């Protein structure tokens, strides 16, 4: 069970690594606007390259 003396610090290190990332992101302003990004997900860019690629490959299959 003495392995716990290695595992516990490692786990804590990992946890606090994430905490550090959280603090850094908050300082960069990622959490300032939490209402708008969910709405942005719903917006489709009509001219996106991905969409065009999918459309052309579909039409190619059909032809």
């Amino acid at each position, binding site marked *: 069970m003495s392995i716990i003396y290695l595992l516990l610090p490692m786990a804590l290190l990992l946890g606090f690594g994430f905490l550090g990332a959280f603090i850094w992101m908050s300082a960069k302003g990622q*959490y300032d606007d939490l209402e708008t990004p969910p709405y942005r997900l719903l917006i489709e860019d009509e001219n996106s390259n991905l969409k065009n690629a999918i459309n052309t490959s579909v039409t190619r299959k059909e032809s």
Partner: protein
Amino acid sequence: MEEVYSLHIAFRKMNTVTVSTSSFRKCIHCGNSVSASLRSDFCCNGCKLIYELLNKRGLAQYYSLKAKTESLRKPLPAFDPISDYTYLDSPESLKIYSWSDTSDPSHRWMEFYLEGVHCAACVWLTEKVAEFVDDVRQIRLNLGTSIATVKVGTLGSFSEVAQEFLKMGYRPHPIQKGMTDLLQKKETRTLLVQLGVAGACAGNIMLLAISLYGGVEGDLAHHFKWVSFILFLPVITYSALPFYKSALNSLKSKQASIDIPIVFGILMGTVASIFNLAIGSNRIYFDSLSTLIFLLLATRYLLRRTQQLTLSTSHLAHFLVPATVRKWDPISEQIEDVLLDQIAPGDLIQVRAGESIPVDGEIIEGSSSINNALLTGESEPKIVHIREKVYAGTVNLYSPLVIKVSQSGLSTRLGKILKSIDEMLNRKSKIISYADRISRIFVLFVVGISITLLIWGTQGNWYEGINRSLALAIVTCPCTFALATPLAFSLSLGKLAKAGILVKGAETLEKLNEVRSIFFDKTGTLTKGTFQVIEWISQESPQDKMETEQAVYALEIHSNHPIAKAITDYFSLLSRPIHEEVVHFQENIGRGVSGTFRGNLYEIKRSNLQNSNTAVSVYKNHLKVGDFLLGDEIRPFANETIQNLRKLGLRPWILSGDTNSATLALADRLGISPMSCIGESSPEIKKEVLASHPFSIMVGDGANDAIALATAHVGVAMQSGIEVSMKAADIYLATPHISSLYHLVIISKETLKVVRRNFYFSLLYNGVAATAAVLGKIDPLFAALLMPMSAIIVFLSSISGTRKMRQSFQELSV
């Protein structure tokens, strides 16, 4: 002749069958209901114009996006574009409103508050504006605060961006640089980090604690206990800072605060745990304490974020007068554009038709009609001649005037009003919240602790005594109550915001519980505020009628009079107006217009009032062919709302700038007693009335009500001139439905009921837990179970609200 005519009209009215369509129509653009008499797909000309614009530009995706998404708040009908934003490009304006990053000087930023953004489609549309204006690098909209951040390159023009926003139907208000409360932003971020640290540590401490509950012993237990102590340190020293600060401030100012017993409980718990840790006992409470701090911070953060959804108004510019004026130099006989700041009393300036007057002054040359709505609230224009006084903020309607400046800037009547608002707002005392008031009870518990300690101490068992009294301190902490209260408020505030009722803060909801009277402004508040065509009665055949309608539109479009506006609005939605040439157009100020259209002479003249409505007759080649009935419609359900508010125990008053007779007439129609009616009130009088009636709500709109709004215990601004109203008022109604006032009052009362309910539960819980602590039954496991149980109960209590609350929210969302 007059009696025959009125009989004729009455007969026509009787025979008009109201066609009720199977479902009421909704405006294609904004979704608000369309008045049935209009038979149109749009609620207003603004929405119609935008619909056409979007289709023309290939942006019709807006409507499919809108259908897919949920609205953050109720949409507003679109505005007709009439504003001029070119002042934004001047170097002086840029200094005030825009900024650059020092690392990136070739780009400039500016922020705008946009009225009417409510869903994802609005986000898409707003950000698409970047594609329609040259050299705009980025536009990002924050839907929660309605603030759009715009980044332009060296060639970009902010005024064009603003104009585009307006065209899309979102009236933009520029925000002074640096005023978006950077301090607030920093504080919110700090709170979030404190929350995150508390959460991370609490989670890890909990993991270790579980093993301790599970019975681990020996060296491992010893090490786990110390590790949990180390993990606890950041929580007690950093995350709990907000509580320490608040408790210290309250102690310094000798006021009660809920944070005082909380801090005491947390610190005592820490002391007990450290003491027990040192002596090797198992009675450590780091897990409960850290989770508690985490939860307390969580609900506070939630409340803070919710309160930010309504605008913190310090950063809206007072933009009620133009920035540049046309100065007339009598010597060189030339007009030059100068900044308003550079005008001194005695200067001569020229104000053209349609422009707003920037100064207080005396007319030197010209006659015109003036719209005094900003200062008096009445939209009926007033005719002015030489040597008469005019005031800053009013709009010149008819013809150019040369004015001699007597006051400008802050010494104008408008400027004094604005300064007065700031003073009133500073003086407005903050109420001590319910939570803080009852914290005294919890402090009593603390006193009980000391006594317990004493009793046990004198019985010789110091160890047991300390432990029990410390345990008592922990469980009598009003934590669950302090958890649930911000939650209850933020839920109500959030739902109200969604319904279009923007409330500035939790304390406003509390204040609404204390009010005894409600004062209504008349024009724009109880009524819609503008002339509207109630009926258009034509005496011609359908073909001739159509031509007359086109003629009337073509004529009235040349006039700035509110009646002309009402008529052109009415026709722009019905027929397809043709902009043909009108020959010999003439306007008689305040009386009517005339002109020749397609060979026929049309005269549109005011006729006698028809029972307090305004009547306008149309003559074709000197023969009468039709009549307009115009009026300022009372808002729908105004009557009901007032009766309902009366039932809630509020005494309704009307406080208006209009004539006594008009005010009494309206009071009569709404069932308000003439004793509660005060007419002919200037902004200054309104302030005095409200000062003599503490514990009142003032409902008003525009700058003329602003001081009253700031003076009242609770000020409610109706959908109107945003800058001044939002600053002066505690609540801003972004919805035209006056019935929401009733629901607002109910919801605030119910929210307080929920808070009180939480309090009683909290007392009960604390009583039970205190007894257990005194009897020595509180061990860490027990405390760790007790706390989340009670927290869940009060959470559920706050979330479920009350039945009346749910009902009201239901009605508001319809």
